[in-house]
């Protein structure tokens, strides 16, 4: 078959992986790890909860579908006419799972034996959709339970409440599972429509890391993969204003400690942030708010945060980017005030060169450490690929980062007028904590 294989080596680390352009249109990455006992494989599509409005390259019209289909499909693909995929994996011993995020859906397994049999199962069941009225109805029940479980999850609620306060239209504000109402609208036809659009191999990738041989992967791929039409899919988003929806949002739940998320919304000038922009932002956040920062210490000393829960992340994807601070706090509004003050002060002084070098080393070390894990490698490779980024370039970009790019990030990001605070507070009736 007309398949092209390229070996990519990191001069810095000495590790290599193979990038394969399979003749069916599928991109395959194989990262062998010598003497590894286990192997981790992930087969995914660039299709997540934000993809409810899209345009195929072979059709004239934009299509709109109910929310929650990507996640619904993830559940349903495990079933086929002959039985479910878990029953097939039960015979190989692989441990299988799947997840849906905002911008991708991934099916995975890890194993120590029968790798190529399990790989065949993975590639086969994801390529074999089977939906009927009856199986869709049953799944609506199971997903309804899952939604209710998330309704009780304060960490989940505080995040989606924040996204609702930051975004007017972007579908990132909608729960990944959809809602009880939106999943009630799902039919086999919708599932097939989305499946045929997004589960095209040109829109997918396979990443395998661990005890694996590239030739054998290609053999299985040749055997099991079905040729896909060269169709491209464009994501369609309504124009998102630069402004936020509301500055503060609050919900009461059965919790004993208030939770918060503080988000700073950013405007995008292109579909997605570049690798350099992401690295600069992450360095900035390390300098500003890691446990070695003055801000962290001040918040800790004031009893406003704890080490177990406080964190900050750069939450960015197709058409959205926000910096989000989160944690538990007795006074989230005071945390917000102190973070905003610190940003102003650091901006006046500029980045301390010593803090910059420290952040760079810490980020570099933690990312190299991540290469211990086949699971981490495969999952990172697939998400970087869908974001248009190369795996080893990430490490190189950290090692090569300079202070000016972080100063630029500091000047342009974290603007107070585009920030919102989400709080989950205990219920008023709450003397229900029997946690003694």
């Amino acid at each position, binding site marked *: 078959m007309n398949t092209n294989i390229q070996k990519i080596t990191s001069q810095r680390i000495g590790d290599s992986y193979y990038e394969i352009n399979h003749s069916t249109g599928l991109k395959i990455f194989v990262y062998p790890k010598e003497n590894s006992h286990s192997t981790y494989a992930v087969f995914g599509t660039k299709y997540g909860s934000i993809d409810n409005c899209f345009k195929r390259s072979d059709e004239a019209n934009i299509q709109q579908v109910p929310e929650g289909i990507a996640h619904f499909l993830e559940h349903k693909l495990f079933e086929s006419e002959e039985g479910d995929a*878990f029953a097939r994996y039960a015979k190989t011993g692989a441990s*299988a799972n799947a997840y849906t995020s905002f911008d991708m859906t991934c099916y995975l397994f890890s194993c*120590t034996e029968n790798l190529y049999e399990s790989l065949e199962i993975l590639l086969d069941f994801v390529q074999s959709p089977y939906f009927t009225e009856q199986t869709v109805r049953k799944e609506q029940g199971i997903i309804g339970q899952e939604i209710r479980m998330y309704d*009780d999850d304060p*960490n989940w609620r505080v995040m989606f409440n924040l996204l609702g306060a930051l975004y007017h239209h972007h579908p990132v504000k909608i729960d990944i599972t959809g809602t009880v109402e939106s999943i009630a609208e799902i039919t086999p036809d919708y599932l097939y429509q989305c499946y045929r659009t997004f589960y095209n191999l040109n829109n997918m990738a396979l990443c395998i890391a661990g005890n694996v041989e590239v030739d054998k992967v290609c053999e299985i791929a040749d055997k099991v993969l079905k040729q896909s039409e060269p169709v491209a899919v464009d994501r369609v988003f309504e124009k998102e204003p630069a402004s936020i929806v509301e500055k503060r949002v609050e919900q009461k739940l059965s919790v004993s400690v208030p939770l918060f998320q503080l988000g700073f919304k950013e405007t995008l000038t292109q579909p997605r942030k570049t690798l350099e922009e992401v690295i600069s932002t992450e360095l900035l956040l390390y300098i500003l708010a890691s446990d070695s920062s003055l801000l962290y210490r001040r918040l800790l000393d004031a009893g406003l945060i704890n080490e177990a829960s406080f964190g900050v992340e750069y939450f960015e994807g197709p058409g959205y980017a926000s910096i989000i601070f989160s944690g538990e706090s007795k006074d989230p509004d005071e945390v917000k005030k102190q973070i905003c003050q610190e940003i102003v002060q650091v901006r006046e002084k500029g980045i301390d060169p010593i803090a910059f070098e420290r952040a760079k080393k810490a980020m570099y*070390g*933690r990312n*190299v450490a991540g290469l211990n894990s086949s699971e981490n490698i495969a999952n990172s490779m697939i998400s970087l690929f869908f974001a248009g980024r190369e795996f080893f370039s990430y490490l190189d970009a950290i090692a090569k980062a300079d202070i000016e790019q972080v100063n630029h990030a500091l000047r342009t990001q974290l603007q107070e007028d585009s920030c919102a605070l989400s709080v989950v507070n205990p219920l008023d009736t709450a003397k229900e904590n029997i946690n003694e």
Partner: protein
Amino acid sequence: MTEINQHTIGEGINFRSIQDSRFKTVRMSIHFMLPLEQDHAAANALLPFVMCRASKEYPDFTRLSRRLAELYGASLSAEVQKFGDVQVLSISMVSLADSYTLYHENLSKELTELLCSIVFDPPFDSNGLFSAEDFHQEQRQALETIDAEFNDKRTYAKQRCEQVMCANERYGIRRYGSRKAVATLQCGDVTNAWKRVIQNAKIEIMVLGNCNPQPVCDVFASAFAKLDRNTPDSCDTEIIKAAKECKEISEHMEVAQSKLVMGFRAGAQLDTPEETAARLMVTILGGTPHSKLFLNVREKLSLCYYCAARFNSIKDLIFIESGVETKNLADARKEILTQWQEICDGNITDAEIQSAKLSICNSYRTIGDYLGGLESWYLTQTFRPNIQTPEEAAEEINTVTKEEIVAAANRVTLDTVYQLIGNEGSVQ
């Protein structure tokens, strides 16, 4: 493969190591094991957290954090866990292997010195106490951790079931002690805990990954040689073979999804074929997505979103946890018991047994690829009369027969049913 080197370097002190250049990191840890005691649990629990805040050379939280960041983001973390009736206090460090540093630094030497300094030479103040500020910070954070456990209803329900079930056993003591005990601690209590722990605890030191363990071993051996240690306190666990009657407890809460947790006594003797059979039986019942509970309670009857069984071999307990709509609580419970009875009656297929064996072996054989996994495997092993490698444990699983599985199910008795009852109706 994943065999661990072990030698004793003092009274009740083991040093264990696996040197493996596959890893890009080194993991060093020290674990103090003490019997769970109502009077000491809270002070003990706070100790590793207070110890991790500062050292003589870096006598302040921010300075220490900055030093760790400079060491390529090395992590220093404290943990407190329960293994049966034993409280285990851990301090772990993870850092990049020397060969992966950008400027050829010797990180492992510095980490060893730092860990030793934290353990043996804490920066006590002029009164011979831990810093009051560090103590208060950790006391507050421990209270917040205890309170936060309430936020996650799945964990909370499991804990409540354990507490009710083991109310009259040491195991009923929480890993942090009670909230009240943490709240009333004084700084001197934690300083005394340090003295007690250094002198009396059983100690495990582990060095795993890409580094030569010998220099680390030498440093620790000479540091311990200077101490006058007592014979360590016994780390035995009380086992109740069978439940006398089933305890029932229900609590109401403003939540959308109810939780059902059932606690069982397994009746399986540790380190005998009974234990291995019980492990396989629990996996067949509710350990995988092709287990009886998953396929029947969740998939076939749609009674819950999750329904899983877990075996705690050291304490000889089995827990079945489930997230259920309120109106389905009774049906879910009935179906869980039906599936258990199926195994008792011998209604298990060869395919079910085979897939459970494959699944357990798969998870055992994966352990060797993760330093954290190896550490917790061998830490658990120290509570068993004989230490096994994950490969040996996998071989043993493969020898279990159907008869042994059925016998294991018949040894189990239901001890406690805990229900966290949410809102009625459930559609919000």
